[in-house]
């Protein structure tokens, strides 16, 4: 793909500009989840982050998982989060008091150190690798279904048991009196 005629010090293609826009939005929203005072606003940032992430999955040709991401995360899990935020009466002003203490002063340098360490030790050596080796149809429903129901059928069944246990456990926890 030809580079775009942009006044930049390095050549940038259209695909890269598209990826950078999606990635910038995702990064902004993930920061929003952490810094937003109100849990509802944090949840909205997380929904948008999940949607953008689904589009990034589409750019990786993982269509099936992108759609699953929208349905499972942006749909089901975030509805659960919003219901719990509503039931906890989190909009009360005394509820989301974020006291000023030492934790941000410790956590932010810790996060920066983790970013720099993993980035320089893991990602930087891989920077020259950009050849796509997977087949273009590797993320379609047929390809996933074929593997999921043959080679991965036992993990699939175990996951269904786990989800059943999760349903029973959450009903037990949510009952008024045990």
């Amino acid at each position: 793909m030809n580079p775009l005629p942009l006044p930049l010090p390095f050549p940038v293609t259209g695909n890269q500009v598209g990826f950078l826009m999606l990635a910038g939005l995702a990064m902004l929203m993930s920061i929003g989840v952490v810094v937003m005072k109100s849990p509802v606003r944090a949840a909205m940032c997380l929904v948008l982050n999940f949607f953008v992430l689904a589009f990034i999955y589409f750019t990786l040709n993982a269509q099936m998982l992108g759609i699953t991401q929208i349905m499972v995360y942006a749909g089901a899990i975030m509805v659960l989060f919003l219901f719990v935020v509503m039931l906890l009466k989190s909009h009360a002003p005394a509820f989301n008091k974020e006291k000023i203490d030492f934790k941000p002063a410790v956590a932010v340098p810790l996060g920066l150190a983790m970013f720099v360490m993993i980035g320089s030790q893991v990602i930087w050596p891989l920077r020259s690798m950009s050849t796509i080796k997977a087949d273009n149809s590797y993320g379609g429903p047929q390809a996933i279904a074929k593997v999921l129901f043959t080679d991965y059928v036992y993990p699939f069944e175990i996951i269904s048991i786990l989800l059943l246990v999760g349903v029973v456990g959450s009903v037990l926890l949510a009952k008024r009196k045990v």
Partner: protein
Amino acid sequence: MASVPFSWYLALGLFMFTTGAVGVIVRRNPVVVFMCIELMLNAVNLTFLTFSRYSPTPLVASRLASDQWMGGQMAVIFVMAVAAAEVAVGLGIIMAIYRLRNDVDVDELSELRG
């Protein structure tokens, strides 16, 4: 998308994971702490998919050549299912704690102190 380097996706995943880890440490509302955990899980999912796209690793001894790079996507499916179960149980626990004490600040929970 061809022509987007492999490392850009990994850098995005690393950034989201780091942000989620910082959020887990900093925030006091357990629901937001759960959201940050979801952020970290999604960062890992993105990394799985990126590796799955850019490097076909023969994780499964399979009959068909096209099945050889599916391990990453299978991991993402299982992470999603485990995350759904984890959120259901975890939010149930938060509701139970809220009914017990009318407060869910994670720094104030000290019932288990001996």
